[in-house]
């Protein structure tokens, strides 16, 4: 299989050894993405197949509605790349071979990309919060089939840390950026809690359902639905079993008790007039009423918005809210990028520490060998009852002497001096590879 996307490797030894191949909403339309979408069992199966390849040491597959990405720790980069390309993507969708459909990232760039994904920076809706949970689920799946090794496990820990910090320390996920959540946000600025709100839906079509979902999800318990077609109202009830169906004419009486009204009918004339709302408000003058008009043409007479305690918002107003929230999220991007860089630095430090581990092990082994030899020669000169104490003392000495050098080797700064420092330790302590055989 040709590998047109894979450029020759240029990363240094300081970079984490990673390979990412993926496609997302920016590269591929939904018709292609859905064909390379992997469910739970398919993901497990694919990970097992990938791991069976000699070129692959560790693997992680993330598949959501907006992206399918495979992260590998390769033994042989080109072989691993060809394996992903063929098994994960082209086997299902040959059209993905066309330029621009797939992206390939390596080493530090691959790691940065995953941290960006977990933080919501790569999402179709900037700061979308669900992605962090999806990354965690995918990670758990890879762990369960044994596809995660130390490198990917540590990378995923950094990714979830970055995602969690982005949510906690910045406003990247704040503010509603969809119609349904914009309604929830408006309601939360007026009422003490959605749990206590009675919601009246006038119209039971797709828009009503899409708005009702987040409203119910966020706690609204009492749902009234008034629709001209009883059949459609019944369909609505099938999805929302707690909803109470009203005759269309009963909507006016329901206005007297409702807190939130969502109108989304296809009617040419307003289904709620100023007179209707004025009459209803007489029964509840001090109780605020939020009216959301999602109809085009408008379902609620605009003049009704001037009534005291009536908060009328049409689709334009909700769009203003969504655009405002998106702008605020964009302003948070530099803060999230800073968090990603911090987590990436920790990850890189860990990877560098990983390189030093064999050397540290050799150093400790050699010190222990010297300690044992010296002890064997010396123990005969000391009484039996002191041997245990001498053992403890010499072990402690060795551990303390090696503590600082080991720590320094693990926490190198990634500069040019790191490699020469490793060589120097090898030279100073005479740590040849041959000696480690025992």
């Amino acid at each position, binding site marked *: 299989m040709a590998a047109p996307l894979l450029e020759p490797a240029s990363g240094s030894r300081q970079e984490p050894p990673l390979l990412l191949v993926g496609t997302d909403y920016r590269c591929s339309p939904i018709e292609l993405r859905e064909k390379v979408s992997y469910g739970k069992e398919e993901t497990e199966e694919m990970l097992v197949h990938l791991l069976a390849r000699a070129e692959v040491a560790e693997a992680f597959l993330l598949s959501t509605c907006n992206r399918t990405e495979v992260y590998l720790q390769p033994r042989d980069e080109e072989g691993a790349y060809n394996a992903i390309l063929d098994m994960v993507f082209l086997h299902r969708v040959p059209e993905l071979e066309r330029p621009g459909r797939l992206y390939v990232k390596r080493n530090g760039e691959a790691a940065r990309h995953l941290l960006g994904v977990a933080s919501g920076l790569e999402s179709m809706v900037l700061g979308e919060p669900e992605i962090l949970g999806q990354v965690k689920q995918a990670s758990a799946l890879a762990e369960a089939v044994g596809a995660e090794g130390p490198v990917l496990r540590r990378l995923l820990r950094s990714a979830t840390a970055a995602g969690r910090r982005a949510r906690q320390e910045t406003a990247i996920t704040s503010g509603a950026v969809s119609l349904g959540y914009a309604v929830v*946000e408006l309601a939360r600025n*007026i009422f*003490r809690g959605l749990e206590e709100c009675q919601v009246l839906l006038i119209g039971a079509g797709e828009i009503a359902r899409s708005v009702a979902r987040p409203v119910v999800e966020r706690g609204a318990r009492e749902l009234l639905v008034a629709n001209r077609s009883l059949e459609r109202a019944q369909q609505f009830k099938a999805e929302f079993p707690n909803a109470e169906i009203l005759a269309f004419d009963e909507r006016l009486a329901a206005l007297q008790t409702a807190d939130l009204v969502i109108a989304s009918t296809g009617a040419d004339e307003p289904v709620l007039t100023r007179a209707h709302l004025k009459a209803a408000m007489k029964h509840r*003058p*001090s109780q605020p009423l939020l009216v959301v008009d999602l109809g085009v043409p408008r379902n609620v007479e605009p003049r009704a918005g001037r009534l*005291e305690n009536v908060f009328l918002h049409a689709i334009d107003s909700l769009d203003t809210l969504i655009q405002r929230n998106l702008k605020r999220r964009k302003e948070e991007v530099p803060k999230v990028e800073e968090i990603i860089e911090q987590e990436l630095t920790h990850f890189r430090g860990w990877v560098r520490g990983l390189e030093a581990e064999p050397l540290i092990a050799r150093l400790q082994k050699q010190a222990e060998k010297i300690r044992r030899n010296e002890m064997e020669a010396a123990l005969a000169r000391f009484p039996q009852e002191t041997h245990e104490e001498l053992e403890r003392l010499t072990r402690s000495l060795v551990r303390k002497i090696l503590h600082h050098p080991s720590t320094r080797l693990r926490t190198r700064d990634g500069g040019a001096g790191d490699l020469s420092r490793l060589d120097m330790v090898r030279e100073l302590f005479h740590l040849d590879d041959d000696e480690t055989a025992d």
Partner: protein
Amino acid sequence: MQTFLDTAIILLPLAYLLVAVDYGFLFFSSHPVAERTATPALRGAVLLHLAYLVALTVHRHQFPAATVAQALSMVAFFVAVVYVFVEWHGRARSTGFWLVSLVFFFQLLSSVLTRPNPPDRAIFHDPFFSVHVLLALLGYTAFVVAAGYGFLFLQLYRDLKSGRFATFYGKLPPLEVLERMMTGALLIGFAALTGAVATGAFWANRLYHDQWLHDPKILFTVATWVLYAAALLLRKLRRWQGRQTALASLAGFGAILFSLMAVNFFFTGFHGFL
């Protein structure tokens, strides 16, 4: 002691100004430094204020509301304490900037109006008379808090009505909560002011017989009481909603300021304190 009092009267408005700026950063930009420092800074300022009031009481041997300046400082202190409690109880600091700004305003007025040697009023040595003063202070404090929440209610109401979602939208408690806080404060304030007027009438009748009835301070206080009574009554009768009540709380706040400042300094004779 005098040195501490002289220093504290300068430090207090400065401290509240810094705290207000801190809360301002918190409200407008959620600045991380302000996130960490606002609450401890406010608590520090309130402790300094408490020390000042205790020192004042010990030094003068009287309830620290014998002058308008002292009364203003007491109101500032009580508003700060109310906010510290609200913040602690509700775990929300979104209204901090506005209430601490009011605290700063009252303390600044107090510091500016403080005179080195205030008159020693014998009546303030009577612990029973202190009940009248304490009730009046409690009432004014509650009305100041009501005005603060009323102001915020009106801003959020306007943002929500207009659909512009400007400065206040998304940063304050919900409209219903602001309305409830405002109404609660108004009710407490009204009950306290009623008590203050009743106890004041009792004392004035004993000391001054009928002369006090025509004093401008008394007339203006009764007018303020009537304004709040009307607002609460209209609300009870469901003729007024949150917006009108909030406007009334702001009007009442203006009346209190006028009563404390202009009436005390220019019109009244016998009620030259609170």
